[in-house]
């Protein structure tokens, strides 16, 4: 357990920075699976990335608020599995479209970057 904690701390140290501008895309992707509350999103991102990305609430919650404002997600209060009231976020149609666009764009970018790096090597 202590080993795990250490590893986690290390991951934290490494993972504090997301690639600039990807947070919203990651949130969109996460929410595309199912509606969830803020912590759920943070946890899911961390889990799926195997601890590489760790999103702290100070950037997650403002990002969600921003996305709600531009209509990519909608929110509502619902009971959690532990019967606690929590604010759940869900993707809107517009959000879905934004996700596919951003994913596509991102894919193009990393392909390009990969090609450059390959050429270098």
């Amino acid at each position, binding site marked *: 357990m202590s080993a795990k904690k250490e590893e986690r701390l290390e991951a934290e140290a490494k993972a504090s920075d997301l690639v600039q501008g990807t947070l919203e895309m990651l949130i969109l992707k996460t929410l595309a699976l199912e509606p969830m509350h803020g912590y759920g999103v943070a946890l899911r991102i961390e889990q799926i990335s195997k601890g590489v990305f760790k999103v702290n609430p100070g950037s997650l919650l403002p990002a969600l608020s921003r996305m709600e404002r531009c*209509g990519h997600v909608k929110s509502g209060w619902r009971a959690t599995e532990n019967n606690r009231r929590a604010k759940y976020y869900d993707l809107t149609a517009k959000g879905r479209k934004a996700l596919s666009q951003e994913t596509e764009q991102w894919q193009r970018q990393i392909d390009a970057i990969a090609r450059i790096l390959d050429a270098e090597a």
Partner: protein
Amino acid sequence: MRWPANLTSGMKALFGKSRVERELDEELEGYVAASTEDKMRNGMPAKMARRAALVELGSGNAVKHQIWSSRWESALDNLLQDVRLGVRSLKKSPGFTAVALISLALGIGGNSAIFTLINQVLLRNLPVRDSRQLVAFGDSIFGGVAGGIDLGDFGGYFPWDFARQLEENPGPFQGIAAYGSFSNKASVRPPTVAGQTAPAALATVNLVSGNYFSVLGAEPMLGRTIVSADDGATGSGAVVVLSYRFWRETLSSDPAVVGKTISLNGAPFEVVGVMPEAFHGFRQELEPTGMWTPISMQPVVLQQPTMLLPHSGLYFLHIFGRLSAQAASNKTAFAASQNWLNEQVHAGVRATEGGTITPARQAEIERIHVPLVPAAQGVSLIRSQYGESLKILMAVVGMVLLIACANLANFLLARTATRQREISTRLALGSSRARIVRQSLIETLLLSLTGGVLGLGFAFLATRMLIAFVSQGNWDIAMSPAPNREVVLFTMGVSLATALLFGLVPAVVAARVGKRGSLNTSARTAHGGGGRGSRIWPKTLVSAQVMLSLLLLVGAGLLLRTLRNLENQDYGFERTHVLLADFNPKLAGYAPHDTPALHQTLLERLATIPGVRSVALSATPPISGGAWSSNIEPGGYRPGPKENMVSVLNRVSGEYFETAGIPIVAGRAITATDTANSLKVAVVSEEIARKYYPHGDAIGHMVKLGIDSVEGPWEIVGIARDTKSGNPRDTDPVRMTYIPLAQIDALMPYAPKTADGAGAGPAREENQDRYANTILLRTTGDPARVIGDLRAAVTAINPNLPLLRITTMREQVSNLIANDELISTLTMLFAGLALLLAAIGLYGVMSYNVVERTNEIGVRIALGAQVNTVLWMVLRESLVLLAIGVALGLPLTFAVTKRIEDQLFGLSARDPLSFAAAIAVVCGMTLLAAWIPARRAAKVDPLTALRYE
């Protein structure tokens, strides 16, 4: 969510801020709880898990703040917060706020008031198509009938036949139209309603050529305008177009008025159209025109048919034209139009002179130039009369506002200094400098916008008073005090500019304050030692205020002395105890042959009014804006070539000279014994006697007048003192010729020529120049007190005989210098206001300095400084500022007053008295404003002062 939804949710958040706050709290709490549970599931003890979760979250408030600032409403919220803070801090110092608001309201209000007038008088274009193409032929400012002049002389007078000729052949112009140079009062009877005859009203009627409206490009609101077909043969075309105002006020906005018949001087006219509200005609007179009729109806309106005869020799029309599109934009084309006009005028003059013209005269005719005056704004008597004054007043109120701004800047600077600690604290707590500058600017904006709103109210009242003044109590004037869009925009602009002017420096100084980051206990010392900038600014501003005050005071002094000079000069007649009344027997239905009996009745009846010493009748008062004048031929004098022989004329009853108080210096006056049956006599002014009879032998000579109806010859029997007769600013003596009313012939000397110039013409007309239009009463006491009796007496003679205007002689004179009165009074008022503001400013700065230096002064006194030394120390500082202000202000004043030299009368722009008085007043003000804080400094108790801090 699109922007409307975004907007609504933002607004909701803004107004339901506590609910949003609660939700955020709940969400954060939920987040922490979920995080804790998760950590516990991973085996962390409950307490540790919660702590770890809280650590991950960091400061809940910071997160909330971040969420909040990710939304647009946060910017607005911050702004509101700043506004609230601003309002609070202004409320904390009510004294400052009140002074600031009052000075701003007065400053901005003054600007708005003058601008309201400038906008209406100087800026507004005629509400017609392409008004830039319109040009007046000559300045067309004054109106009247002239004879024996050249075409277009005296600012643009033309006879009917010449105008007609241009109208038909406009050459390079798109069109040329003419209109009566003066409007006439006519008695109007509105259409009968339900069998009841409506009472007659007086309306101002302007004669216009048939193409007047089409050349102007003015569209009617109802019906049609006058067209060329209306302006045909003399006496035809009995149609009338009404002004909006007349339609609304006299006809109660009757929507079906077009086609109805109204009676004008007893003749029926068909109403063919109504003009829109904004249209006042090409020439705007003080009294708005009520209706327009074709020139062909002149015999009915003016009742002087000879005017419309070819070669009548009567010049009573003004002309304007619409330039071609090229001429309006291209100088060469414009010059071509100008040349064309001059050629027409030259040809016209030659045709009038006929016969052989001497080469000298030929050359003279070639030099006649009738300028094309751009008239996009039409022609306005008010503009030419008050335009210059309004510009001066605008500069004056601008300066007052500058002084007010300097004051506010000073106050804000002082406040910034006292708020240094607050600012340092805010900076230390992480506020950005931009936010502090913004906060400070918002405060100034609050002040200036509130001041602007108050100023708008003040401007409305002030404009009402100004218009009342300009219109001389005649409310029937085409000007409105109500602020329109331009005025409101102007006021907003001035308020914003003001805020920037007085707010920026303090704001920047405020933001710089924190640079030293002084949170030490002695912020005061830090300020005293450091802020060279914050010390030099107040002094600069005070010196500038002194400078501007000096300028305003000198200007006010010069204008006030001008007014005094105008008032106190020798007018040649007496101004006390004389009452004047204008009346119009022609409108009341008296024919020229009725006048002798009417005049006799009036003279006899009015003489019985208690308190009346003598009564006289005349054509015009001894002094008035308009004049009856013509060339004269003094017997035995041989005039030089083209010598100006114009004399102002007046026809008077017996006792005129006695009643008006004009002394007879030689010979005798005109008396009641000069009747139609006795020898025709005349009295001339000293100037005529001096000029034409230098050997003192004027009496006994004959004089002939250039107007057919009163040609004479008249034998000179007396010489009257020179009087002012028109513009009180004229310094050259006026040539005056007086003839007896009773001796004017009953009929015109010649029968009018027929159109073809042959055959037996119509019979000789009655002489229209037999009417008297002014009653003069010399009273024993206050002339205003016999007004009631005068009205009663005239009504007793004929209830339909209208007395149009009753004034005392004193008022008559002061009306003629009303412009000077207005400008000097207002400049004085504003200069006084400026002085007061400057005094408050100086007092504020000096008091603040004393408070600032209490410590130092205490030490000085404790170390043995004398009271007088301390007093002098503080005073000296003010005196230096005064000296700088005056030293810089004098050259500025010299330069500026030079530009208003035209407005002055009887003194130069460097009048030493005005300068001395202004300097004395400014010095007095400075000493007074500095004395009080200096006394306070001298009274500082060293013990208190040393403990102070």
